[in-house]
């Protein structure tokens, strides 16, 4: 068992992802330095830090999205349920089915709403019949808190929805493949405050079934939605702990400077 360095955790969940001494290089740039982190199941973990601190990069290492960048290199190990996802035998395709991702800008495919949701289940073969698929689509849209808005126009193009609706559609799309971990890369940065509120509410609900990792620019958002917070600075994980503790009683002076707005 990996022991969490923080023993004062209020509710102890099983550890889903454990990163040990992770280094990420972009060509010659050392983007992530020596990061150790434990991410728990059924918890929202927020990564915060100034732009360029490596929080998004680190998030993308968790489902190997960095593989798509030629010059990117990852060292160290990241264990998902005890299995190193950078092991040679691991197929990133299988991994990404377990660790879903939602991106900064809503990126629905130029297909119908139905096909957007059905895309994942189809490629992973999760539905045996059309009825199964209909079922999955409905369930995912409900879980994405968008069912009521789109149930009458499932075959309209997904690109025709508003920004907030598109982002919830993308979340529903990610949920449809039955992932165990959901990574969100600044999911609200392209949205207006009302849509942001809806998405945050949704994130809170998703916590009941998934381990959610969210990168955010906004400290308020981290404080609102997350139970755990990790603060990154210049590629280092500076501090990791209970969200309440990070925001009220930071241990590292850098964290304190950031939270009080002196670096950013």
């Amino acid at each position, binding site marked *: 068992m990996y022991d969490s360095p923080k023993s004062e955790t209020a509710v102890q969940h099983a550890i889903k992802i454990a990163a040990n001494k992770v280094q990420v290089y972009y060509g010659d740039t050392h983007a992530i330095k020596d990061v150790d982190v434990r991410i728990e199941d059924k918890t929202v973990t927020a990564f915060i830090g100034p732009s360029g601190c490596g929080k998004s990069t680190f998030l993308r290492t968790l*489902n190997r999205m960095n593989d*798509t960048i030629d010059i990117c290199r990852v060292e160290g190990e990241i264990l998902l349920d005890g299995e190193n996802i950078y092991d040679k035998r691991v197929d990133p*395709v299988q991994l990404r*089915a377990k660790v879903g991702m939602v*991106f900064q800008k809503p*990126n629905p495919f130029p297909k119908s709403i139905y096909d957007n949701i059905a*895309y*994942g289940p189809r*490629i992973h073969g999760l539905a045996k019949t059309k009825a199964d698929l209909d079922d999955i689509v409905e369930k995912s849209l409900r879980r994405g808190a968008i069912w009521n808005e789109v149930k009458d126009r499932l075959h309209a193009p997904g690109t025709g929805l508003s920004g907030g609706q598109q982002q919830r559609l993308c979340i529903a799309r990610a949920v449809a493949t039955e992932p165990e971990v959901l990574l969100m890369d600044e999911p609200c940065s392209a949205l207006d405050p009302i849509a942001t509120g809806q998405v945050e509410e949704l994130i809170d609900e998703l916590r009941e079934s998934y381990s959610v990792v969210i990168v955010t620019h906004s400290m308020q958002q981290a404080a609102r939605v997350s139970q755990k917070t990790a603060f990154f600075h210049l590629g280092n994980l500076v501090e990791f702990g209970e969200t309440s503790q990070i925001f009220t009683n930071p241990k590292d002076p850098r964290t304190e400077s950031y939270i009080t707005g002196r670096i950013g």
Partner: protein
Amino acid sequence: MPALWIFIAVLVLAVLGFVLGRQRALAMVDGDSRHLHSLPNYYGFHVGIWALVPALLVLAVWLIVQPMLIDTSVQSMIPDTSYATDGELSLVMSDVRRVADGLDLAVERGALTVEEAATLDTGATDVRALLGNVGVAIGSDVQPEVLEAAQAYRASTATGNMARTVIVLLLALAGLGWALRRTAPNFRARNSVEKATLGLLIAAASIAILTTLGIVLSLIFNTIEFFKLYPASEFFFGTTWAPSFGGGSELGILPLFWGTFYISLIALAVAVPIGLFAAVYLSEYAGPKVRAVAKPMLEVLAGIPTIVYGLFALVTVGPMLVNVFGNEGALGLGWMSGGTAVMTAGLVMGIMLIPFVSSLSDDIINSVPQAMRDGSLGLGATKSETLKQVVLPAALPGIVGAVLLAASRAIGETMIVVMGAGAAARLSLNPFEAMTTVTAKIVSQLTGDADFASPEALVAFALGMTLFVITLGLNIFALYIVRKYREQYE
């Protein structure tokens, strides 16, 4: 004075104008250029432009209009009895011009005096022999009315040229003088010069329109001429193409259309899958090293002139295909009897179009936002699933546009079909038979010895018109699709 000398004289006046204008402006402020509205050079340019532009414009118009006027007036001198058709008239007119040129040459060489040339008559002199001596060969003996017309032609040309010289030079001087008078310290020379420059820029940009207009007019006039001689319905719906220069030709476009269509189809069948897959591989899979080598190699194919592909079809690919599909070929099928065939031309044209399709598709695939790919990969799709189910459907309109552009290229391609497809117009389904295309026939009808007024030569313009309309339609449609597609992701 010949036009070239007038041109040079006007240029000299313009340079002179520049110097004078500049000096005058400076003199007016006692050499202190700070008191001038514009820099001294602008005053010079201002005067130069006024000397140059109006004079040259008149010269250019004159050069175009004078021969037209003289032609009409000389034409009216030729009695109706000496020609039956417009074609014969144009032959007579070219004789007239040639005799006139001959007389000019004879005067220049000293074989005739100026008066003799003007008063010569066919009864007293053997004009043909005389002109032959100075190196102008005339097909038959010179008719009296032709000689008369030629003399009138020379006379009016001489008067016209004289008037041209005087008027153009006067205009240049007048422009120079007027601009010089306007020169004053507070005259806005720069603005005036810039306005003139802008006019020049607009004129240059309008050349594109003039070119299109030139194409359309030259096609339309000759096509109308053709339809006067040959019924349009037989041209568009005739199934036989059998031109004979003795007359009685059958000029149906359908077999040529079929050949064009069949060859383009084969070309696209080769180029589209290969080009598309190559673009997908190079942009999505290939490592930087492979890309750095393979991409320029494919682009080399695009830079090779079509004549090279034509020769490749004729000498290499044709015989190679015969070796496989011919009577004594490797497969023993006996489908192909000669090297020139639809398949030969289509295959080679396909090779030529590969880089065209692949670079267009590459652009289009790359303009599908990365976010779309990330979305799909993030859901655990493989690269090929992402490509097939997300990227390509998203890029489809653009790819359709690219294919249409390639089709328009294939339809308009000339050298490969002239050298590789054969000359026989045929409606057949066998791709190993020789067929011919619209472009190949344009070349053969206009490079033969046919007289330009005969339907056998004029048909080339009707073919050209058809080709122009089809490719233009395809291009406009394709560019429209591609533009719409681009806008979607901007």
